[in-house]
């Protein structure tokens, strides 16, 4: 029976994926990004910089470079896609009351996710072969090496993402925004930790700490104590460094560690089925009475049965703006935190404290509201209102910008009195950009996952660049 459930879960998920147009976007993103990231010999920046030098390009180095593109770009995009794609909504109301094995369901979905990501990796491999013909000297293109290095590095990492998404969808507390926050932390830590450790090593245990899998191939042949490595978009000079990445790949324990990561991903998917928590209606239980009273709107005021019909507003656009602001800042907890962030502007630095705090709050408020208004069957209703959805989206961007101004107001006024307009300019720019990103992604994905994760990634970039 479990085998039948697994087959059914796998088949249904694959059928749903096959009807997802987002999959075609995903299949294109990585190869296109790879083409633009892997520049020419003359470029002053490179995806990989070892000792501040770009590596001499060979087939194996190209495969590793594509693996780095997967780790830095494709992993979060893959997570976004898996969380917000056609299979996001599951018939749990029916599934959870059956006796079917949750492990079989989880493994079936995991299998479908892995198959989809393998398709993306296949597209990336094809792109790698094409790029090789463009950037490598004739006769030096080894398509087998490109595929081997890319799949060894990226395969287990992508399987890990699929497993984490299944696990996060299985647990009540990670089905919502916390899931995105946890993934973001995991992803950052998985890339930064092996690079930041700066130590060289060998063996299965050492290689297991390198989840993205590119550190050992890049640093294995470097002298001890000089393993400085940058990835993403690093500044490099014209001098190149020759790397024997195959020595790293063939070093003791490396391939075994990659296989182990694939196995761990499978175990996580198994665990996801084992610890699956049924959906429950969300009832907030706040222990302290005073806090409960503070956060709850309480009982409604008595109704007047003779209340006349509401007339049209004199300023309907203002009404929509106010409504958008209320729903972005929905809930008393959000408002309390916003007040705290605003107050910080009086005594703390705006760029490092108040502005990041405001944007972090808005990452959650904007993504939640942007997505809730973009659900198909709600749009069918709101699309018949005088304020059509496109006008509401414009109001959303204005309201999001207004919130950053409001939270930043104490700091803006304080700085303004001293002739400093930077807080005002920063609030305007960051608020408008965050709101625009949120509404565009929510309109495309029709879920809060994509805007939330992208805003969190951008928020981290904003915070760390202060």
């Amino acid at each position: 029976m479990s085998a039948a459930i697994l087959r059914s879960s796998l088949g249904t998920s694959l059928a749903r994926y096959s009807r997802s147009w987002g999959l075609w976007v995903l299949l294109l993103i990585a190869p296109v990004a790879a083409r633009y990231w892997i520049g020419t010999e003359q470029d002053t920046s490179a995806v990989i910089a070892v000792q501040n030098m770009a590596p001499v390009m060979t087939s194996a180095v190209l495969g590793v470079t594509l693996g780095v593109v997967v780790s830095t770009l494709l992993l979060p995009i893959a997570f976004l896609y898996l969380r917000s794609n056609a299979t996001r909504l599951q018939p749990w109301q029916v599934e959870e009351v059956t006796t079917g094995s949750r492990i079989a369901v989880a493994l079936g979905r995991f299998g479908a996710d892995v198959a989809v990501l393998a398709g993306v990796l296949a597209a990336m491999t094809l792109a790698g072969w094409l790029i090789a013909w463009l950037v490598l000297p004739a006769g030096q293109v080894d398509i087998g090496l490109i595929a081997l290095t890319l799949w060894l590095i990226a395969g287990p990492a992508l399987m890990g993402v699929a497993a984490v998404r299944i696990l996060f969808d299985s647990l009540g507390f990670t089905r919502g925004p916390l899931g995105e926050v946890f993934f973001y932390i995991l992803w950052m830590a998985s890339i930064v930790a092996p690079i930041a450790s700066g130590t060289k090593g060998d063996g299965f245990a050492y290689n297991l700490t390198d989840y993205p899998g590119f550190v050992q191939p890049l640093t294995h042949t470097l002298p001890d104590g000089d393993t400085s490595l940058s990835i993403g978009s690093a500044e490099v000079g014209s001098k190149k460094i020759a790397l024997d990445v195959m020595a790293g790949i063939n070093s003791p324990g490396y391939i075994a560690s990659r296989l182990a990561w694939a196995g761990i991903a499978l175990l996580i998917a198994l665990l996801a089925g084992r610890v699956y928590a049924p959906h429950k209606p969300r009832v907030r239980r706040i222990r302290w009475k005073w806090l409960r009273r503070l956060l709850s709107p309480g009982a409604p005021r008595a109704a007047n049965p003779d209340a006349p019909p509401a007339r049209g507003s004199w300023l309907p656009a203002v009404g929509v703006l106010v409504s958008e602001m209320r729903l972005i800042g929905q809930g008393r907890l959000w408002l309390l935190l916003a007040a705290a962030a605003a107050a910080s502007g009086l005594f703390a630095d705006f760029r490092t404290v108040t502005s990041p705090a405001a944007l972090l709050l808005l990452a959650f408020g904007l993504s939640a509201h942007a997505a809730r208004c973009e659900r198909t069957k709600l749009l069918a209703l709101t699309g018949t209102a005088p304020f059509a959805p496109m006008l509401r989206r414009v109001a959303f961007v204005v309201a999001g910008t207004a919130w950053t101004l409001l939270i930043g107001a104490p700091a803006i006024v304080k700085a303004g009195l001293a002739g400093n307009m930077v807080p005002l300019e920063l609030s305007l720019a960051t608020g408008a950009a965050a709101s625009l990103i949120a509404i565009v992604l929510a309109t495309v994905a029709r879920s809060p996952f994509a805007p939330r994760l992208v805003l969190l990634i951008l928020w981290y970039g904003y915070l760390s660049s202060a």
Partner: protein
Amino acid sequence: MAELTLQGIAKRYRKKAVLADVSHSFAPGLTLLVGPSGAGKSTLLRLIATAEKPSAGTIFWDGNALPGARGKLRRTLGYAPQAVDLPEDLTAREFAMHIAALKGLALGAADKQFAAITDAIGLHADINNRISTFSGGMRRRLIFAQALLGDPQLLALDEPTAELDGATARKLSALILERAKAAIVIMTTHLADELAPSATVLRVEGGSVT
């Protein structure tokens, strides 16, 4: 007095014809659209509510043809679709005020009116609760209540009494009949018995309306 006219309306989804050459004029009062499942009742209601465009034919509102008069119609429309993706994390009141804002209504007055409507249909005690805690019947009443906000001259209601118990359905019916004294109320239903004596009944079947 408001008037809605359908002239030669047809609706096709790819090759499947759902409605063909539907013509009818609606004056204030209650009109029930009855017929078997899949006959095109909800499609006709969506066309009237401007949620979709007809494949052929013209809709006139107060003598003016759509789409030119669409804005005018929407300013006085109350629409309750059969299913809405209600925002689970909002309270009923927050959701209703969002709709009121999109309708261009004064929010203070809309809040009071929403309280009165929900009081009449037995939902008022729950308007500050999150929609995620609502039963199917409560959701149905919320969708109905938002349609009544403002002073709509055209009410398009898709099965508003489905999933409701007898007593609650009668409360909604009473409100619908009250509204039908001054407004055009078009409502789809499977069970026309209770409201039929006070309504014009149109049968939708095989793509035509009789």
